[in-house]
């Protein structure tokens, strides 16, 4: 199937020029050199093609042959994706480890999905029915918690002439026959889809449901809707990766796709070893059961790093098409952009800002626009939420990747080095972050919790904004120069910071907070503020508030009150009343 299409004439790292056939297409997958390393055609000029090679290629020489495959770079889609860990071009890393050992060697050819497993297929469609792309033929219990729906490939339509009965089938066995104008097709549980082409759907819908992450500052202050796109920019050590891990662990998505793009090997290993042991609170299954990991660490070939993002989002869209909510984390999109820059540099393209190619913005847009809540081809509702980490050089958000990213996302979680240094985690800066989903999510919050979320949120934000203004004055003259009302604002802001925004990912209770607890916690803090305002009007000194027992109680409620016992938070309101009344009596 692979036929020779030319000979190498030039090698510069992962970029190779080949002279030969004119019958090849842009973005066709090729096999390069005598070792048949995987590559992709990224440029054509007369009979010279430019190829990027997805594997380490030292020793490659001019004169070696290159083979065409006739296919675009594609992923395999079907049961068995979940619980897998792939490299950037969807080779299964555990299988590679068994075959090749500890180190990733070259020229390894592996199928992405294991062909030998038997899957329990249950048909849901009858013979003689006319179907189009996306129609559901049947389902397979892929894990204990998830039904994998087998769909007609999006590009086909016709009449079902045969459907397999209930039973166990291997991935490539036919489970249906489809008669199309071009002839009869065997359909199996395995499909291919080119990674750079978005999978089709019927129409986009408004993202109006919260992607619950269990992280208080994210859900309550800067929410992301299911089907939305968010960016987490932050310098090194600001906590991007931990935040991404927390979302991967606790978010209420059905499927999580985690892409480690040009990041640390040990971090991927941590996820690999930790997730099978962590239990999803919603269905008591290991978290790994809903997860697909894509690991292209920083020392793996740079071109495959570029591909890993597309591999991930194509798998995400596939599950979306079954009607699931998928959350995709890409850590880090900056490494992906740098891969673009590195390839572009080797192609000697004219650079735009900081050496990045001029098409950086366009590529980022293509990626983030694949997020969305949609009506699928089979009239279900599915979503892909995208959360991209950004690693700006020097933590400077004015650099090109952060700036271009901001144009295409709607939730911005700006991480702050100063907060991280003080071990205030998650180090989301409340002044620089924003969410454009606040208005569309208000009804959802009210329906779920019964609280006027938007009102509480804006009260909280107002106190934080006021605090930032006051702290500038404090830095000049000290806190004692402020009137008591303003000192109360500083105290309440401290409660919001330490008691609400700071969240300890290592603490069993604190690591995840339900939205019911979140809103009640914020409500308690704001109640304290209103009650203390009254006390100050009666003459209580603001400095006396600091050492009240209830202040410590409020700061510790995140760990002391477990998610199931949120009613305990009402007792704190009573404690506030009691202690402030006592205080008032001392002053009056």
């Amino acid at each position, binding site marked *: 199937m692979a036929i020779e299409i030319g000979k190498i*004439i030039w*090698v*510069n790292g992962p970029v190779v020029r080949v002279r030969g056939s004119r019958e090849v297409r842009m973005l066709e997958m090729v096999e390069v050199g005598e070792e048949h390393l995987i590559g992709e055609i990224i440029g054509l000029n007369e009979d010279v093609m430019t190829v990027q090679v997805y594997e380490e290629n*030292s020793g490659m*020489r001019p004169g070696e042959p290159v083979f065409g495959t006739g296919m675009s770079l594609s992923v395999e889609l079907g049961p068995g994706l979940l619980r897998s860990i792939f490299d950037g071009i969807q080779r299964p890393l555990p299988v590679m480890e068994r075959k090749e050992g500890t180190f990733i060697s070259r020229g390894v050819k592996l199928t992405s999905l294991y062909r030998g497993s038997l899957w329990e297929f249950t048909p849901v469609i009858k013979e003689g029915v006319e179907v189009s792309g996306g129609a559901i033929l049947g389902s397979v219990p892929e894990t204990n918690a998830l039904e994998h729906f087998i769909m007609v490939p999006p590009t086909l339509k016709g009449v079902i002439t045969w459907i397999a009965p209930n039973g166990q089938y291997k991935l490539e066995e036919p489970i249906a026959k489809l008669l199309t104008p071009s002839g009869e097709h065997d359909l199996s549980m395995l499909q291919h889809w080119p990674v750079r082409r978005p999978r089709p759907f019927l129409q986009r819908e408004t993202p109006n449901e919260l992607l619950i992450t269990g992280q208080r500052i994210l859900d309550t202050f800067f929410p992301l809707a299911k089907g939305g796109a968010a960016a987490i920019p932050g310098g090194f050590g600001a906590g991007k990766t931990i935040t991404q891990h927390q979302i991967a662990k606790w978010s209420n998505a059905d499927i999580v796709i985690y892409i480690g793009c040009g990041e640390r090997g*040990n971090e991927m290993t941590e996820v690999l070893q930790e997730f099978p042991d962590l239990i999803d609170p919603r269905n008591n299954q290991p978290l790994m059961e809903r997860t697909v990991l894509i690991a292209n660490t920083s020392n793996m070939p740079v071109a495959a790093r570029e591909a890993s993002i597309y591999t991930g989002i194509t798998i995400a869209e596939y599950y979306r098409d079954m009607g699931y909510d998928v959350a995709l984390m890409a850590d880090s999109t900056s490494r992906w952009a740098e891969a673009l820059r590195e390839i572009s*540099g080797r192609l000697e393209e004219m650079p735009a800002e900081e050496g990045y190619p001029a098409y950086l913005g366009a590529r980022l847009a293509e990626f983030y626009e694949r997020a969305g809540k949609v009506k699928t081809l089979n009239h279900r509702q599915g979503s892909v939420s995208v959360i991209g980490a950004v*690693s700006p050089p020097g933590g400077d958000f004015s650099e090109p990747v952060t700036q271009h990213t901001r144009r295409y996302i709607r939730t911005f979680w700006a991480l702050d080095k100063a907060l991280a240094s003080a071990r205030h985690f998650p180090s989301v800066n409340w002044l620089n972050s924003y969410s454009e989903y606040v208005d569309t999510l208000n009804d959802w919050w009210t329906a779920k919790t019964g609280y006027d979320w938007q009102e509480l949120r804006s009260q909280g934000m107002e106190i934080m904004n006021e605090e930032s203004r006051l702290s500038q004055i404090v830095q000049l003259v000290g806190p004692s120069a402020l009137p008591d009302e303003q000192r109360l604002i500083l105290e309440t802001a401290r409660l919001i910071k330490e008691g609400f925004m700071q969240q300890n990912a290592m603490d069993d209770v604190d690591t995840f907070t339900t939205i019911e607890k979140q809103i009640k916690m914020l409500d308690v803090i704001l109640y304290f503020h209103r009650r203390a305002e009254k006390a100050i009007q009666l003459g209580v000194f603001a400095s006396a508030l600091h050492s009240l027992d209830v202040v410590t109680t409020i700061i510790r409620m995140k760990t002391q009150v477990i998610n199931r016992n949120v009613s305990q938070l009402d007792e704190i309101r009573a404690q506030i009343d009691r202690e402030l009344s006592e205080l008032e009596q001392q002053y009056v």
Partner: protein
Amino acid sequence: MSILAKYKGQEVSGVSRIEGPIVVVESPGVVGYDEVVDIYDEEGKIRQGRVLEAGENFAIVEVFSGTTGLSIDNTRVRFQGRPLRISVSSEMLGRIFNGLGDPIDGGPEPLADKYANINGLPINPAARKYPRDYIQTGISTIDGMNTLVMGQKLPIFSGNGLPHDQLAAQIVTQADLGSAVDRPQSQTTEFAVIFAAMGIKHDQAAFFRDTFTKTGALSRVAMFLNLADDPPVERIVTPRLALTLAEYLAFDLGMHVLVIMTDMTSYCEALRQISNIRGEVPSRKGYPGYLYSDLAQVYERTGRIKLSYGSITQIPILTMPNDDITHPVPDLTGYISEGQVVLDRSLFQKGIYPPISVLPSLSRLMKDGIGAGKTRADHSHLAAQLYAAFAHVQEIRALASVIGEEEMSSIDQQYLAFGNQFELGFVRQDHDENRSIEETLRLAWKLLSMLPLEELTRLTADEIDQYFGKF
């Protein structure tokens, strides 16, 4: 002779251009990318290099030891047909080599156990073992607040004139496997140390050699020295040699290996020099766009694997130009490494050794290397509390410098006292002071007991009951 492997190969003349360390060879025949090259000068002396770019009728070659004295017509080039490989063996411990691996201690050529490609191969993330065993360095700011874990890469971000060499030498001398639980009885408790120097001064190299000799560590140290006046291009090879040996010792022989690499800034400058001569599009500050990927290929050769007891722990040292942590070298390093230990000039000027600035320092693997059964159950909260309290001290100090200390509230004054004692009694220690982890934690509690109870919100009530005010 050298530990670099030798092959026959095709010999050609036809050098058409020489510029800096770069030689362009016309009609070299079939030449592979990244292949090793021998270059013979007029007198027949050999230099080594490798192919950076291979075309149909040209090859661009970088010459490790520089091109001084080479001429267009009288230079012959032999392409060896293979990437750079070295011989590795356990005999290399106790020996000193130059930056290309030639012995420079007067001893014989070490016998080869195995030949290995110096570029290594990426470790499959599925084959790694997540690092969980802490290394006791005896330095409070590291053990207590930025714990080093076996298999971690934890760089020291320093500046010119700061005592990073002393700190690195102290870590090497004091490093102790602490909690390592899965260590077989037969395994030695001492680290093998591989020291790779890139562009450091002669007296720095002498300092390390003397320290290792004095402490008796030299027999388990292999030193690769590329000094400041050695050819810069050699520096690109030096860390790769060191890490190839480290991988052999750790993953083939099961040893625990500590790799010290200094100075990574010189290494990056050598990369920049070559990139500039080749006319590549620069990214920040003239460094090439692939600096991140290149550094990752060095730093990621760290860790533990399922199939071996051994480990590679890296402590790269880099000097931040103008103490600027946002400079591309520390910046990209920080994005790859698992934390950083940052040295601070103002602490150094106050006479505090080691001048470790704790707030920007970080150990990412600390969370899994400490706690009950490893260091102590309260360690994690204790460290978080120290960080929070000392971060607050910085705010108060800023305020005190404006309005004066006398004007501060009594809580703030307690914080100021805490901050001073933190620097003098916890950060500061002697060059040979080896504090146990218990001692470090005891000092930490003693410090925190200077603050009012209600300020200690990061600690649990039980922990406070058990330790507060007890020391």
